[in-house]
């Protein structure tokens, strides 16, 4: 098959992803001395820049359950899932097990694949003979909101 993971074809700019419409400086001045800040107009920090590396491939999921507590993913966390990242040993993934989506560490060593929880009370998920584990996407980050008002 064709390798697209490291393909040299550039990804086009995604016009659909927009920054917040809040200019930092650049207030229009009708007359008089121009604002000295105008030469330093920059974009305000946007958290999406940190969370989203591949806009077309990024989906948000909500987590239910406590099996990933020690990885910092709580019940109710929002995870940022990037389908463009290559799943590697040791990364956190959303995986399909029997048609259900689950968040776990991907263990991939010596030709064996299993899913590991980050909570000692959960056993590893080892695929049985007929069972397959399919990685839906790689978890790039996690968002938690602590105070709502």
């Amino acid at each position: 098959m064709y390798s697209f993971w490291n393909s040299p074809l550039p990804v086009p700019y995604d016009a659909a992803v927009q920054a917040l419409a809040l200019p930092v400086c650049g207030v229009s001045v009708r007359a008089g001395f121009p604002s000295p800040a105008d030469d330093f107009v920059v974009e305000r920090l946007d958290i999406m820049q940190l969370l989203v590396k591949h806009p077309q491939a990024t989906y948000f999921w909500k987590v239910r359950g406590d099996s990933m507590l020690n990885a910092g993913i709580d019940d109710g966390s929002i995870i940022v899932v990037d389908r463009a990242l290559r799943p590697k040993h040791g990364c956190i993934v959303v995986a399909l097990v029997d048609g259900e989506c689950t968040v776990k560490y991907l263990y991939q060593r010596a030709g064996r694949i299993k899913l590991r929880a980050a909570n000692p009370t959960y056993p590893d998920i080892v695929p049985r003979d007929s069972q397959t584990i399919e990685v839906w996407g790689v978890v790039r980050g996690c968002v938690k909101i602590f105070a709502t008002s």
Partner: protein
Amino acid sequence: MYALVDGNNFYVSCERVFRPSLNGRPVVVLSNNDGCAIARSNEAKALGIKMGAPWFQIRQMEETHGLVALSANFTLYGDMSDRMMSLAAGLGPTQEVYSIDESFIGLQGVRGDLTRRGHVIRERIHQWVGIPCGIGIGHTKTLAKLANHIAKTAERKPGSYPSELAQVCNLTTLPAQDLDDVLAATQVEEVWGVGRRIAAQLHEGGVHTVLDLARLDPATVRRRWSVVLERTVRELQGMPCIALDDAPAPKKEIACTRAFGTAITDLPPLVEAVSEFASRAAEKLRKQNSLSSQLLVFCHTSPFRPGPRFNKSVVVPLRRPTADTGKLVWAAAAGMRRMYEPGYRMAKAGVMLLDLVPASVQQGELDLEDEDHRDRSRLMEAIDTLNTRYGKGTVHSAATGGSSKAPREWGMKQERRTPYYTTRWEDVPIARA
């Protein structure tokens, strides 16, 4: 040279991204109000479900064959389309988004192995977005569209075409004999722009396959059929006649029509409904900077249900071409009141704006009668801005009734709609941990 990228069973594929358990099962997506099948998975096609099959006719397959039917979730499909189109644009320098799931890419100046490039982009869309597509490459748009059909058919029905044409089919690199074989294996009705009627005429004249059609003399085709078919023949012969439309031409008419969730017999909700349709149509009208001179309102009972039939429409001429929501709503409501008759269970109504003219063209005339001459275009602009920023229907004509909180009697029936997975925080998919 052109490529056509087209999502396979697009709506069903969008649903499967978030519900992988639907893989391998027969799935259909139903039109507004769960009326008929507008997308089918390969498994559903194999069950013999036709495009447009009414839901009540195939409903029993839910139990007999495990058929899954979903209400159309256009919010989701729109977002998935956006992701797919943005990646498809990587094939070449220009792009025309032709429909929600199809886009033409201009390949002029692109060097290297185009077939390989097609496979890389196809794999990327599949991996990144989750949608499988077919890519067809040809010297003209008609050939690219045909190549796309071959790419998809070769994948879905092994043996129909050479297997190396599956998924990505590049007609430009086929040796002449192989190209002829492929064209000879394809019926004329698969050609873009050949409708059912023309296809029947062609068959009658002994033109059965695409190869037969491509070998016709363009001048004869023009004499016997039309300029349009002549253009198609030339395109099949490799001569580009249809350019890439970077910006779609303004629409000549605008329609907003909908089937009701439940049948309506009373006048007030019908007036509300057509008022809403007129408002929506007015928004579209202003978006393309046009004015409308006539408005058509129609209303009818269900053609599938028993009971008395009603099917009427009224054209309301407008005093002056306008894009004013107030005036268009007034005209739609007046038309509805004019044709309404009690005692019918109305299933569908709609508004069409006809005779559109650019907003820049205005017929001057003498003031012969009193009319509200105030220019309300700035008011309309403000309404459009508010509705864009704060959501559809934030500011609306009072005639349309209801509010987003109180569902309207004539609202859409979408009993089987999946969540807005990618556009609403409350709806994001759940992963177990």
